C-alpha cells in the first residue's frame, strides 16, 4: 500500500508504515519562515496599507476612529471577527457598499481597489496589535539623576566595581535607555529585540577545581551541572571533570553583587540609576 504526500517540490511516494497519513482540510496555508512566530497570515503590501490608511481616515475614521479601534458611533475593527475573517475585502466590501442602515452606517461607493487597500490597512492594524515583539517601549528616563548618583555611590555601592569615568564613561552613548535599564539590573540578559546598541559582552565567570590529589586548576567556567564541570585555562585549553566526592569546585561569579541588588531595588531606585547613567554621554 502506498500513499501520496504532496510537497512544494512535487509528489513523493512513501511506503505505508513510514508515510505520514495526510489530512486534507480545505485550502492549506502554512505559516511562512522569516517572520515573527506570532504572525501566521500574509503581511499586506506597505503601499496598499498607506493608500488604505488615507481612505480609512477620510471616510471611516470619523466613526471607527482613525486607528480603527472604535469610536463614538462605530465599532472596533482591529478585533472585529468580520474584519479578521476578511481576505482582500471579501467580507468588508459588501458591508462598506451596502452600509448597515439598522445600525446607522451609511453605504460608501468605494472601488474594488479602494476596498482592497482598506482591507490591507485593517490587516496591518490587526498585526500591529498581534505582534507584541514590535511594540514600542515609551520614555523610561523618568528618574532623578541626582538621587541615582547618590545611590550609585551610596546604598547601591556600585562604585565598588564601576566608575563613571572608567568602565561606564559614555555608557549612555553605547546603549539605549531600555538596554541600559536591563543591563544595570543584570548584565547577562535577554534584551528586547529592537533595542539599539552593540550585543552585550559576556562577563567571564572564574572557577577553580581542586582534585582529590590536591591539584588545582583555574580558568573560565565553560559548563557546570550537578555532575560535571568544565573550564578553559589561560592557555585556552579545555578541561572537564566529573564532580566525584573529593573534587572541590569554587565558582566566583563576578555578577554576584548584581544578583544581590536585584532582589533589593525599588523601582524608583532603578529608574533613578537609569537617569544617572543617561547623563554619562
Amino acid at each position, binding site marked *: 500500500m502506498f500513499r501520496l504526500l504532496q510537497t512544494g517540490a512535487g509528489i513523493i511516494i512513501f511506503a505505508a508504515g513510514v508515510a505520514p497519513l495526510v489530512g486534507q482540510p480545505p485550502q492549506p496555508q502554512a505559516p511562512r519562515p522569516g517572520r515573527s*512566530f506570532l504572525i501566521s497570515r500574509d503581511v499586506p503590501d506597505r503601499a496598499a496599507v498607506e493608500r488604505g490608511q488615507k481612505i480609512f481616515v477620510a471616510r471611516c475614521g470619523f466613526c471607527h476612529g482613525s486607528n480603527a479601534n472604535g469610536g463614538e458611533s462605530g465599532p472596533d475593527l482591529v478585533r472585529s471577527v468580520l474584519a479578521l475573517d476578511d481576505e482582500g475585502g471579501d467580507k468588508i466590501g459588501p458591508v462598506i457598499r451596502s452600509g448597515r442602515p439598522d445600525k446607522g452606517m451609511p453605504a460608501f461607493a468605494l472601488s474594488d481597489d479602494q476596498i482592497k487597500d482598506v482591507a490591507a490597512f485593517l490587516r496591518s492594524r490587526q498585526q500591529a496589535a498581534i505582534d507584541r515583539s514590535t511594540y514600542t517601549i*515609551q520614555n*523610561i528616563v523618568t528618574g532623578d539623576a541626582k538621587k541615582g548618583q547618590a545611590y550609585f555611590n551610596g546604598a547601591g555601592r556600585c562604585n565598588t566595581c564601576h566608575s563613571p569615568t572608567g568602565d561606564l564613561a559614555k555608557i549612555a552613548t553605547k546603549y539605549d535607555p531600555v538596554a541600559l535599564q536591563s543591563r544595570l*539590573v*543584570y548584565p547577562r540578559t535577554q534584551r528586547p529585540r529592537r533595542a539599539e546598541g552593540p550585543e552585550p559582552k559576556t562577563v567571564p565567570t572564574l572557577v577553580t577545581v581542586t582534585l582529590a590529589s590536591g591539584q588545582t586548576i583555574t580558568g573560565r567556567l565553560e559548563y557546570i*551541572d*550537578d555532575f560535571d564541570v568544565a573550564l578553559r585555562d589561560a592557555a585556552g585549553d579545555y578541561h572537564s571533570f566529573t564532580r566525584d566526592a573529593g573534587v572541590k569546585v569554587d565558582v566566583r561569579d563576578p555578577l554576584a553583587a548584581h544578583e544581590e541588588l536585584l532582589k533589593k531595588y525599588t523601582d524608583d531606585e532603578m529608574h533613578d540609576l537609569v537617569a544617572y547613567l543617561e547623563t554619562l554621554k
Partner: protein
Amino acid sequence: MKLRRLVIPVLAAACLSGQGLDPAKLLKLPVETWPTYNGDYSGRRFSPLSRINASNVTAMTLAWEYRINMGPGAEGDTSIKATPLEVNGVLYFTVPDHAWAVDARTGRQLWHYKWETHGGIHIGNRGFGMYGDWLYFETPDNYLICLNAKDGTERWHVEIADVKQEYFSTPAPIVVHNHIIVGVGGDSLDVPGYLEARDPETGQVQWRWNSTPRKGEFGADTWPNQEAMEHGGGMTWVPGTYDPELNLYYLGTGNPNPVMAGQGRKGDNLWTCSIVALNPDNGKLAWYFQASPHDTHDWDAAQTPVLIDGQINGQPRKLIAQASRNGYFFLLDRTNGKNLLSKPFIDLNWSKGVDAKGQPIPDPAKEPHTNGTLVIPASGGASNWPPPSFDPETGLFYVNSSSSYSLFYLTDIEDKPEGYGGRDSGVWSEVALKAIDYKTGQIRWSHEYGARPGGGAGILTTAGKLLFTGDPNGNFIAYDPATGRILWHSHLIANVSNGPMTYELDGQQYLLVGAGDSLYAFTVLH
C-alpha cells in the same frame, strides 16, 4: 496488588484481539496502561510501579530511543511536550500537526499521521485523549482530529476555534464518560476563552463553558463592560483533573486579556486565572477560586490542579492543590472550593498578602508601567504547564519552580488597549526542584540548579521511592523523593521537554521521557 501484577500477563494474552482502551482503566492507577495525559484522573502522576526502585535504579539503562521525523516542510517547535499514552503495548504521542504510534517494548514506529496546517502558533502539543479504539488530538489551527488507533487513519476532523481570530490549540483532550473535553489557547488579540465537550463519535459540541461571563451573567460585575469581558481571554490550555465520586472536572484557567494592560478591564476579571470545578456532563460551574484577581503579568492559573486525598486536623479530606504560576501554592477543599492554604513557594514582590477568601491581593505599584517595573516572578511564572507530581507516600507536592525577575513595560496607554498592551524582558532566573508539604506549604527540600533559565520538565513519582524529572542542563535525573538526594542521571540530547511516564509490560518496567525530538525508554534489566 502483588496478585494483580501476576495476573496481568495472563489477562493481556487473553485480550490480544483488542488494541482499544477499556474505559475502566481510566478509573485505576496506571500500571500496564497509561490511558490519559496524567496517567490517571487525579493529576498526581504517581505510579504504583516499583520494579525500578531506589535499590536498583543505579542499574537503569537505555532500552530504546525513538527520534521523530516530521518529513519535509516541518513547522515550528519540534519538542515532544506530549505525555505519551500507553495502551495494550502501544505508545501514542504528538507534536504540533503530527502524531505517532510506536511499539512500547521496542520503539518501533507503527504509524505517523500528518495534518496540513492552516497556520496558528506552533508552540507545542500536549498529546492525545483516547476513547475505545479512537484517538483525539488538537492542532495549532484549532481542529480536533479523531484517528483510528489501529493504523492512524483519520476518522474525522472538526474545527473548535477560529485561527483567524488568533486562537491556537495545544491541550491533550481529556475523556470523561462519553465526553471529549477540549480546550483552546491564544492571547494575541483578546479573544474569549472556553472549554467544550465534544461527541466521541461525531465531534459535535455537547456543551460549552465560557471562561468569562456574558452580559448579565453571574460574574459580569467583575468586568467594567460587555466589550471587555467578551475580549477578556481566560484560555483553557492545560488538561484538567477529575474526581469520579464528586463527578467534578477541575480546570485551571488562563489569564485575562489584554495581557499586560489592565486599565481597560478594571475588576477581578472572573473566571480568568482561576481554579474552577465543572460538571463534566453539562459544563455547569460548581465553584471557583481565583488565584490571581485582575492579573497583568501573564500569570495564568492553568497549572495542573492536583487531587489529594489527605488529612487535615486528623480528618480525611478531599483536597485539591496547585503550585500556581504567580508563585503561590494553594490548597482547597475540592468539594466546595474553600481555601485552606495560600503560601508563596518562591520569594515574590507583587502581592500585598491574601484576602479573606485566600485570594492574593495584587499590588498596583507592581503592575506594568511605561518606565518598567521589576517583578518576581517573570511572565513565564514561578511554575508553568510542565506537570507537577504528588507522592501520597511522602505527602509532598513536587514542582520545578523558577525564581525569575522581569522588567514589565506598559506600551499601550489607551483607555481601551488591544493585543498584549505591554511587553516584558526577562533579566534573571534561578531554577529549583521543590518539595512542598501540602498541609503547611513549607518547602521540605529544594534542589537548586543555579542562576539560569529553564524549568520545562515535568515530574513523575513512583512507589519505587523515586522521583524522575529533568534539570536545565539536559540531564534526566532520579531523586529520592523524601530527601532530594540524587540517585541516578543520564545526559540526553536536549532538556527533558515533557512529563516522564512509566508502564510495565511482560514484567518489565519502562521509564519513558521526551527530550527535544527524541523519546527515551529506560529500564532495569532482570
